């Protein structure tokens, strides 16, 4: 029986590291631009589908090579989003930017349906045998997910704490206007944020699709988990979002021991509702759930 729970815990950690990747991107955008990017989920979907495109004819690249142009295009998409929609709206009503992000999300999701259809798709890789470590089954994909998430988070940590760029990112998220007055290059910061968010989302999308499958709602479903993680971590708190993502993944998988798998997604929702009731500022929340 312990092996069963250990298995669920392991699955939870793998799911959680991907949720954490999504949540970190969402939290970063929130920290700097102070709005919730509903179209973040579509960066996830596009990352996964673009990798599929470069995997299949006429490109027929192996997946690890296909991921490179896929991520590059995801980054371009994120920058285009910002340039065409979010930047012109930055000074306007907060509701305008939210509605625009919902519209953008819907536009991009339907574009996925237009290009690739609504069916479940996979990368059609040969099945690989799982490993058994202390009675826990782990697939190679899951190890890859773990390794990729670790690498990404270490790079992010080093970037934020060890470089001048990271310092300016943190300054901007603390107070955008003041940072601007102090001569921080806002353009560079904006681009960096979107590049990071898009790479995290796209890479996470590819990993999720590799582990299970992809469909146009992939991003939207993952985004809800990321929302829960960000709420858990507190507004715009990047490391809080990371821990929040891990927590949601583990809670969701351990919860399957107690409730029907049909309601697996309910656990993330329940976390959100309970938090809203008791801790509206998040568990790791610094002061400032109010925008």
């Amino acid at each position: 029986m312990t092996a069963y729970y250990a298995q669920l815990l392991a699955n939870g950690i793998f799911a959680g590291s991907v949720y954490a990747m999504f949540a970190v991107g969402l939290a970063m955008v929130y920290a700097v631009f102070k709005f919730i990017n509903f179209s973040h989920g579509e960066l996830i979907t596009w990352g996964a589908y673009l990798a599929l495109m470069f995997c299949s004819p006429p490109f027929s690249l192996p997946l690890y090579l296909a991921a490179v142009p896929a991520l590059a295009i995801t980054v371009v998409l994120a920058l285009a989003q910002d340039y065409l929609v979010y930047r012109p709206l930055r000074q306007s009503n907060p509701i305008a930017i939210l509605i625009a992000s919902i519209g953008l999300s819907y536009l991009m999701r339907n574009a996925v349906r237009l290009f690739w259809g609504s069916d479940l798709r996979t990368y059609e890789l040969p099945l690989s045998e799982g490993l058994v470590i202390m009675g826990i089954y782990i697939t190679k994909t899951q190890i890859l997910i773990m390794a990729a998430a670790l690498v990404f988070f270490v790079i992010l940590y080093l970037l934020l704490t060890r470089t001048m760029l990271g310092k300016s990112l943190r300054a901007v998220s603390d107070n955008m206007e003041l940072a601007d007055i102090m001569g921080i290059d806002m353009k560079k910061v904006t681009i960096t944020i979107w590049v990071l968010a898009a790479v995290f989302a796209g890479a996470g999308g590819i990993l999720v699709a590799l582990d299970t499958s992809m469909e146009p709602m992939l991003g939207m479903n993952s985004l809800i988990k990321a929302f829960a993680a960000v709420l858990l971590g507190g507004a715009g708190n990047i490391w809080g979002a990371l821990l929040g993502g891990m927590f949601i993944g583990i809670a969701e998988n351990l919860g399957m021991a107690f409730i029907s798998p049909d309601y697996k997604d309910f656990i993330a929702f329940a976390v959100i509702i309970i938090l809203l009731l008791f801790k509206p500022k998040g568990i790791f929340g610094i002061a400032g759930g109010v925008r």
Partner: protein
Amino acid sequence: MDYLYHILIVCLIYAVFAQSLNLELGYAGLYNFGHIAFFGIGAYTSALLSLSGVPVLLAMGIGACLAALAGAIFSLPALRLSGDYFGVATFVFAEMAHLFFLNQRDLTGGPMGLPNIPRPGFTGSGVESLPYFLAFVLGGALVTWAVLQRITVSPFGRALKVIREDEFVAQALGKHTFGFKTQAIVVGSFFAGSAGALWAHYITYISPSDFSLQETILVLLCVVLGGKGTNWGPVLGAFAVVFFGEFVRFIPIPPEYTRFVAPAQGMAYGLILILMMLKRPQGIIPEGRRSRKC
């Protein structure tokens, strides 16, 4: 002619639904992205009750009241959040409701939905009932419009606008903002539930896919396109959106391209939302005020 009746009925149901969202989004400034959940609660409640023998009108009333109750219960935790996070909470609530409709098979029929929902007795059923049903829906829409008009020009409506513009000012003026917002959500949910009940009894078949994110986008589009914070705006928006949707059916498209129609239509809706926000955030009918802040 029957087709015209059909379009008008759908337009009016959407008009009621869009107006109920407008009270929250346009007047109170609450970013409700999950309004479809209350529409669904009204529809399922009314359908289930009437299928088990309750008279249709009573079932619809109970459906609307249950939606209002759900709104009240939902608003207690959700209103502790401000701005964006309220939007996320509503969005998540709608997804929860959708999952519930989908998975609670013993109650809602799961993905198969609920067929054979009766029409109200006085309209009869089938095609010949359409004019009567239209009159019924028109009555409902007029009542909704009149009630919301009355509410929004009252001091209550003005208080909601102050809360939208600056919540701290409203508090400083001694307004109990939490109470006002709760009431706005309850009234909005009530009318959303009524619209859902009308929908269920008109279409006579509901399934969880009628209450998904897609419909949230549509109703949001109705409100934003028409003009939020006005009473005619959402009505106009509803007519524009429904007529556009029906118009697309008549574009001659070769059969091999028909699978592209729905995604392209969705892309168009998303694009219109973005363009409205960029170019004309006040909608077709702008809200009348002496000065615009933004």
